[in-house]
């Protein structure tokens, strides 16, 4: 008998009588719509991220253009922020992405309770991009922010694309004496532009 069949036979023999699957809908108090954006900003800042509420993308575009005048490799994935770096594609090797200093990516939605944003694979262009860049800038339409993870999972479809991630703040570790250090393996900083316009 194969290991698969051996395991499955043992499970069948040992699993208890069927218990009911509960409904995840539960009665709970949701925040006022006006409180959602401030909660997202406060939570994001508490986990080491930075939030800027902006009503016009022109401001982001200017910052991006200015940073491009320097020596650093800036990757933009968003047409509304100017020239898009079309060289960043799924098959690109880690070695070619390693020099990326800042990456600009749009998120699908934000979650107020934990300051995270959901990113689909198509928004990343390359799965490595939000991790390997030194600094990450996320553009998020403020109206997409939902109160909790339950609403987030109602809105996204995790099976739609090959990969997706809830990303909350910059990469961090506290593995040395519980001292918080920002910038473990992923991005050293996270800036979220909350577009209200």
């Amino acid at each position: 008998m194969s290991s698969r069949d051996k395991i499955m036979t043992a499970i069948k023999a040992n699993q208890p009588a069927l218990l009911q699957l509960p409904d995840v809908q539960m009665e709970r108090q949701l925040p006022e719509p006006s409180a959602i954006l401030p909660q997202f900003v406060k939570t994001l800042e508490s986990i080491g991220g930075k939030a800027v509420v902006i009503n016009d993308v022109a401001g982001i575009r200017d910052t991006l253009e200015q940073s491009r005048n320097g020596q650093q490799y800036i990757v933009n994935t968003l047409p509304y922020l100017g020239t898009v770096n079309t060289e960043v594609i799924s098959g690109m090797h880690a070695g070619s992405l390693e020099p990326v200093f800042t990456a600009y990516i749009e998120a699908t939605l934000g979650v107020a309770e934990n300051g995270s944003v959901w990113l689909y694979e198509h928004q990343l262009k390359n799965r490595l991009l939000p991790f390997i860049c030194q600094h990450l800038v996320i553009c998020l339409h403020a109206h997409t922010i939902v109160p909790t993870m339950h609403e987030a999972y109602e809105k996204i479809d995790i099976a739609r694309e090959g990969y997706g991630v809830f990303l909350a703040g910059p990469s961090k570790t506290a593995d040395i004496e519980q001292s918080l250090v920002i910038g473990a393996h992923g991005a050293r900083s996270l800036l979220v532009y909350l577009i209200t316009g």
Partner: protein
Amino acid sequence: MDPKKFITLYRTPNPGATVSHSKAAELFIQDEPRTDWHDETLWFVREKRDRAVQQVAEWEQLRELASQIKDHTLSNLHAYLTQFEQQAQANGIKVHWAADALEHNNIILQLIKEHQVQRVVKSKSMLTEECHLNDFLIEQGVEVVDTDLGERIVQLRQEAPSHIVLPAIHLKKQDVSETFHQHLGTEKGNNDPQYLTEAARLHLRDKFIQSQLAITGVNFAIAETGGFVVCTNEGNADMGAHAADIHIACMGIEKIIPKAEHLGVFLRLLARSATGQPITTYSSHFQRPREGQEMHIVIVDNGRTKQLGRPDFRNSLKCIRCAACFNTCPVYRRSGGHSYHTAIAGPIGSILSPNLDMKANADLPFASTLCGSCSNVCPVKIDIHVQLWKWRQVLTAEGYVPTGKKVAMKGMAFVLAHPAIYRLAGKMGRWVMRVMPFVTNNKTFNPWYKQRDMPAAPKQSFRDWYLKNKQ
């Protein structure tokens, strides 16, 4: 490798060691300031957990939901694993099944050999610790680089992780500094965590970029979609998995959850329970391999089906590995993870490990005060302290408990069952402590005194006081 040799080599993290929890703990607490630091630091994490939990009004509802979802899943595990396998295969993921640790390791070794891989990176997976994958691969000549900072630190020191979420919590920054100085060439005596983390970042970036194969764990596998979720704060699982041409994810059979919507429940609970964060920095949802990549899942039993068949201990399989029970446990905090001599320490480890090997782990269910704090913080409501108590009975019945302990327990049961004798013993005890303190303040006769001070003996028992003072 010969299965017999594998078992003798790798069944316990300290091969051949027969040191019990209490003996190992005795060594750990010799350094009193360090023990206090360990205790206070983990309690600090427990307090962070409390603050995070208090922000969520429906916390108790979430725990109940999570518990019921897991109970249901275990009761329908056959169907969910079947569904998961079908969906994962439809997604282009290759699914492997391993009955035990050796088969798990051999599957991975086979993949490494088939693809002639030289460089392997691994993110944190307690399952691969349980299977002793690293030692196994190194013996076969394959270099594995652990990429979680804490795991890398202990790997360089040739130690095992002492905590499932905070692998290097037994170390001070001076220790890490010394290790990095030796292995990564950092400045001697520079103990700054920021500096040391930066050194590890640079060292490991190199490893990520050059790696050909990445191994990760699995936090949740979703039957409905055939995908899986991996949570990290550092981003190391993603750096590894997205850079390498081959991604192998290893999971125990109990990692299954039925639907995507259940992730909402578990991701709200996991990081808050673990570190007091509202969510881990990265909660990565792997659905299909990227273009040109190979993705494998190894589904492992290694004793889990046996545990599933033990009604009293079955629900230990609900564990989501948050380590809240570690951080709150008065015994874990004061004895350190290595004292548990198993891959998974702490209260949950003490109810999982006897299932794997009763004889080797018979001491662990006794490494508890049965205070119940573990059960109170558990996000999936495992009755950990009840199972510790039940394991004690099973182990005693099976003859795995030393005679001394058995006799002492019987003696104690006798005293507690006879009030007159109990009162007399109390009176004698108080008299001895007052008149002849050298008898109790004595490390040879009284093991309790070894690392503790005896309390001042009261003049009367509570019962005497009560009888005198009641109206």
